[in-house]
């Protein structure tokens, strides 16, 4: 016949806690009494203590390799340099794109000065023939009577 013993859960908790703190006399008494009447808990306590002894004996005490500090600082310098580059790279890329855009715009402006400049004055200057190598001839017709003579009133290709 199996006898049921109460308090096994409490015993299992206290059997570990006795290594962490000083148990009250009441708790210590409970452990002693329970140990006497409950063989499985007694065995469990011995097993637990042995397992934890083994665990503590397995602790390692490694030595730090020489120049540890220097290696940390070297890594830190590399990371800081990388961070600085990451921080500034979008700004530098933006500046580079803006630079290219400005240079392109300046080149376009300098080329546009080679195009003919037309200032309408009188009937003779009503029609402008624009031609360029290999391109069809373009005729621009101004209505000089109009007050708004800034743009041609008709544009057509020369047949």
């Amino acid at each position, binding site marked *: 016949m199996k006898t049921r013993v109460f308090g096994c859960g409490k015993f299992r908790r206290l059997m570990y806690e006795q290594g962490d703190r000083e148990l009250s006399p009441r708790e210590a008494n409970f452990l002693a009494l329970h140990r006497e009447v409950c063989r499985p808990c007694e065995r469990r306590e011995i097993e637990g203590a042995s397992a934890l002894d083994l665990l503590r*004996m397995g602790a*390692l005490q490694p030595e730090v390799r020489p120049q*540890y500090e220097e290696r*940390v600082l070297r890594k830190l310098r590399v990371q800081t340099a990388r961070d600085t580059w990451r921080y500034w790279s979008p700004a530098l890329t933006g500046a580079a794109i803006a630079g290219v855009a400005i240079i392109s715009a300046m080149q376009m402006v300098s080329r546009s000065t080679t195009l003919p400049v037309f200032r309408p004055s009188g009937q003779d200057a009503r029609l402008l023939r624009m031609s360029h190598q290999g391109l069809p001839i373009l005729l621009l017709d101004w209505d000089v009577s109009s007050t708004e003579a800034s743009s041609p009133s008709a544009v057509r290709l020369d047949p």
Partner: protein
Amino acid sequence: MYNVLGNVAASFFQPRIVAGGAAEAAIRERQWVCRCREGDETAMTALISRHRGRLVRTATNLLRDRHEAEDVSQDAFLKAFREIQKLRDDRAFSGYLYRICVRLCMDRLRSRRPEVVEFDSIQPHSGGAVEDRVVVERLLTQLPAELRTTLVLREMEQLSYEEVAEAMHVPVGTVRSRLHTARERFRKLWIEAVAE
């Protein structure tokens, strides 16, 4: 008589001298942390020298791999220095650094693949220190990162419940329950290993 009084005086003042030394060290550390914020490498070197031993040891016991442990401990220093602006109280540097190291170790443990461990024949306390370490290593690999870390910090690093709670950034009650579960699992694993 004179000697007796001398001894009494020495024993009376000794704790004060020790406490004074600790206070002095704490003040010096605060100054180093302050200089670290300005990027002073001499102060960083001083802080590394002061804390490296503890960090490497804890990481080694958690990861059970010396090279990986050294890597992680160095990463902890790097993270601590790079994010030192997050540290509000200069006095808390030691705990802040240790927490980073424990967190990095736990990340490494979580990223590891679970191992299938086979025990050929383990005789309880039959082997020497090396065998014990191998057995411990194998048993620890079977515990989840949280339980393993709690167990190692308490049993190997001898931290109090409060210190474990601070290092793992969890309440003390969680430490207590995790520790109980971890010890029970470790005991069962050990029994199974011995029985095989």
